[in-house]
């Protein structure tokens, strides 16, 4: 195998080496010759390759070659053998030879690679090194840094007082050794390997800088911010290497202690956060929910966000998502207070906006926090009526079963700050069956330096893709899309709500409050009832009682054109009753008919049903009743 047979990069290294690198066969025939060989010996590659190596050997030293060949055949290396050689123009030059045997695949020696260094060149380098050493003398011994000088082989030639005295070593213990093998690095072979590599690279001109472990005389381990710079002569060639280091052990330990403290606080805050969030979300039939909380990725980004789901006394289910300003333990504690306060206040507030008004009073009367945003919605699972209000919180995303997603952007009021702003508004919409609501904290969508419109736009853009997912998968998908993409500043709360009133086979219909819709309603109810084992008289009672309730809504709820909607929901209950809810979203006003007529419809309904109840608020009228499915068993 010859040098030429080596890969191209090897050839490139050979060509750019400062040393003459020559290979020869065992009979002494020269087989390769690099650029430095031409520079040192004067022969061009073309004229010397094929000649015998003895051409370069002075007549009186020819016997050396016999000895060299003998040792090579025995597989021995010859290192730093100083001798004299002839140049093309007949000059004798001092060289240092290193000769290695070249073997073939079977290990048989087939030639030799010879590296010849002009010792004159090295001497010049050593002189320069000496000069440079003097130049660095002041830096060496008058500063707080460790400093030394390496030759290009990586041997430590000089070291400053600090590097030995402070570490408890003596100059003799470390000088004239390969730098990576000195006692500072004795505790780690990995560090030694890194330094050997760094020395090689620095000799080629690369700067190395890394935080390294090192060891002092008493055996203790410390940290050094270490650098290795190549130092060049006027021609730009690297002449020696300049290692420096600053002990950073105390600084790093202080930093680590601080980080550990922060991590500990984060753990506590996260634990508190989890403890303060609901463990289980209980929802009525026809509603499914899923929620997720993710802490921020940086140390203290935990604590301020919450989600909650709870039942209201009137059968509705309430959803809240909020965000207390700040992070860490204080924010987590404030979050817990606000979440609990809202759940406690909600049953006594007629509408979500009123609940937020009261919550703001609570914020003003405590010192839990002085700034929070919150979004609160209440869903009637019987009818899909959804009331909501927002105090400075980003809008709820509504994804209907068909059609484009949209924001529920009504009923916005300023964030909570205890400012007693007066009544906060409430907005209302009716959800189609299959609708999805997404409540979230701004950590889900906000990115530093981005306009809120752009953030919301990204959420809207994925909205349509969520329409067929379960609430659990919606949360998962949103966190994957937005939440887990590297460093997050903020924590995230996401709550997904699916309204699916017919999931259990119940009857559900929303229709415009117009008289001509009634026959369609009856037709729908008849075909739904046909699918069940229901006696004819129960069927008629259902049709009649529901029809009466709907007629009332059509006649009395809406007073402008076009009218609003009426929702009918019927569920079969375990105890063999139909539970019926009829809801409109208008304002009950008796029209010109005598009260007696309305009374008759109600009398009829009461006669046919049990547990009859009617409630009218500013947001509409709800009629609920139950009907026994089997008359004989319940009569």
């Amino acid at each position, binding site marked *: 195998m010859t040098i030429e047979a080596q890969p191209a990069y090897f050839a490139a290294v050979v060509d750019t080496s400062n040393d003459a690198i020559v290979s020869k066969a065992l009979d002494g025939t020269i087989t390769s010759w690099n650029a430095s060989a031409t520079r040192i010996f004067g022969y061009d590659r073309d004229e010397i390759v094929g000649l015998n190596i003895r051409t370069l050997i002075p007549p009186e030293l020819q016997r050396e070659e016999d000895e060299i060949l003998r040792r090579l055949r025995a597989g021995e290396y010859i290192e730093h053998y100083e001798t004299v050689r002839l140049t093309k123009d007949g000059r004798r030059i001092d060289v240092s030879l290193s000769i290695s045997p070249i073997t073939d695949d079977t290990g048989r020696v087939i030639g030799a690679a010879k590296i010849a260094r002009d010792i004159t060149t090295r001497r010049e380098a050593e002189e320069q090194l000496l000069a440079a050493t003097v130049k660095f003398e002041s830096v060496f011994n008058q500063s707080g840094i460790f400093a030394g000088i390496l030759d290009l082989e990586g041997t430590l030639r000089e070291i400053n007082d600090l590097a030995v005295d402070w570490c408890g070593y003596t100059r003799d213990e470390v000088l004239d050794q390969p730098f990576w093998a000195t006692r500072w690095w004795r505790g780690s072979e990995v560090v030694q390997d890194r330094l050997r590599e760094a020395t090689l690279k620095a000799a080629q001109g690369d700067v190395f800088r890394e935080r390294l472990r090192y060891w002092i005389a008493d055996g203790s381990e410390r940290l050094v911010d270490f650098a290795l710079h190549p130092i060049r002569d006027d021609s730009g060639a690297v002449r020696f290497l300049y290692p420096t280091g600053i002990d950073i052990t105390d600084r790093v330990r202080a930093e680590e202690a601080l980080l550990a403290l922060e991590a500990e606080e984060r753990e506590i805050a996260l634990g508190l956060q989890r403890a303060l969030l609901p463990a289980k979300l209980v929802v009525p039939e026809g509603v499914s929910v899923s929620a997720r909380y993710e802490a921020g990725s940086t140390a203290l980004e935990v604590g301020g966000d919450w989600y909650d789901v709870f039942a209201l006394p009137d059968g509705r289910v309430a959803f809240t998502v909020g965000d207390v300003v700040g992070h860490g333990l204080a924010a987590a504690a404030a979050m817990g207070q606000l979440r609990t306060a809202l759940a406690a206040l909600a049953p006594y507030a007629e509408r979500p906006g009123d609940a937020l008004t009261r919550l703001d009073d609570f914020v003003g009367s405590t010192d839990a926090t002085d700034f929070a945003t919150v979004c609160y919605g209440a869903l009637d699972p019987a009818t899909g009526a959804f009331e909501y209000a927002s105090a400075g919180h980003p809008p709820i995303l509504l994804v209907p079963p068909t059609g484009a997603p949209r924001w529920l952007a009504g009923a916005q009021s300023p964030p909570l700050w205890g400012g007693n702003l007066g009544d906060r508004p409430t907005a209302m919409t009716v959800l189609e069956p299959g609708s999805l609501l997404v409540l979230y904290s701004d950590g889900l969508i906000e990115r530093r330096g981005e306009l809120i419109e752009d953030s919301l736009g990204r959420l809207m853009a994925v909205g349509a893709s969520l329409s067929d997912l379960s609430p659990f998968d919606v949360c998962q998908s949103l966190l994957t899309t937005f939440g887990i993409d590297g460093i997050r500043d903020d924590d995230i709360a996401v709550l997904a709500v699916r309204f699916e009133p017919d999931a259990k086979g119940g009857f559900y219909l929303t229709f415009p409050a117009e*008289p*001509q819709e009634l*026959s369609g309603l009856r037709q729908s109810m008849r075909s739904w009832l046909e699918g069940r084992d229901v006696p004819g008289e129960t069927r008629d*009672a259902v049709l009649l009682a529901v029809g009466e309730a709907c007629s009332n809504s059509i006649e009395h709820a809406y007073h402008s054109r076009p009218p609003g909607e009426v929702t009918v929901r019927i569920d079969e209950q375990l105890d063999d009753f139909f539970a019926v809810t009829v809801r409109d979203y208008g304002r009950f006003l008796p029209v010109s008919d005598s009260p007696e007529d309305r009374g008759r419809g109600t009398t*009829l309904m009461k006669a046919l049903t049990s547990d009859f109840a009617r409630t009218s608020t500013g947001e509409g009228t709800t009629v609920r009743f139950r009907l026994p499915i089997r008359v004989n068993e319940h*009569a």
Partner: protein
Amino acid sequence: VTDTGLSVELEYLQERTLVRLNGDIDLSNINDLQQRLELTADGSLNVVLDLTGVSYLDSQGLRLIKRLHERAELRGSVFATVAPAAPSRGRRSNSRTWTST
């Protein structure tokens, strides 16, 4: 026949008019029906309203029947309804019920 599928057939017999209704009576057609029946009643001595073919009749319909009774009473004429016994709870009968004033 109205758009909700209620048909009204009139049969003029001696001394009385037979009105036969088929279909559902609800808020959507009650006003039309009321006008029609009042017109018919006004032009007839006695009216018999046959509800056998009525598949749905709510309080609006009851109100109308009551009202027709009251008008007939005022005029001294007869208003009668004929219907199969409603399959409502608690009361059952196989006979037809005649109501007259």
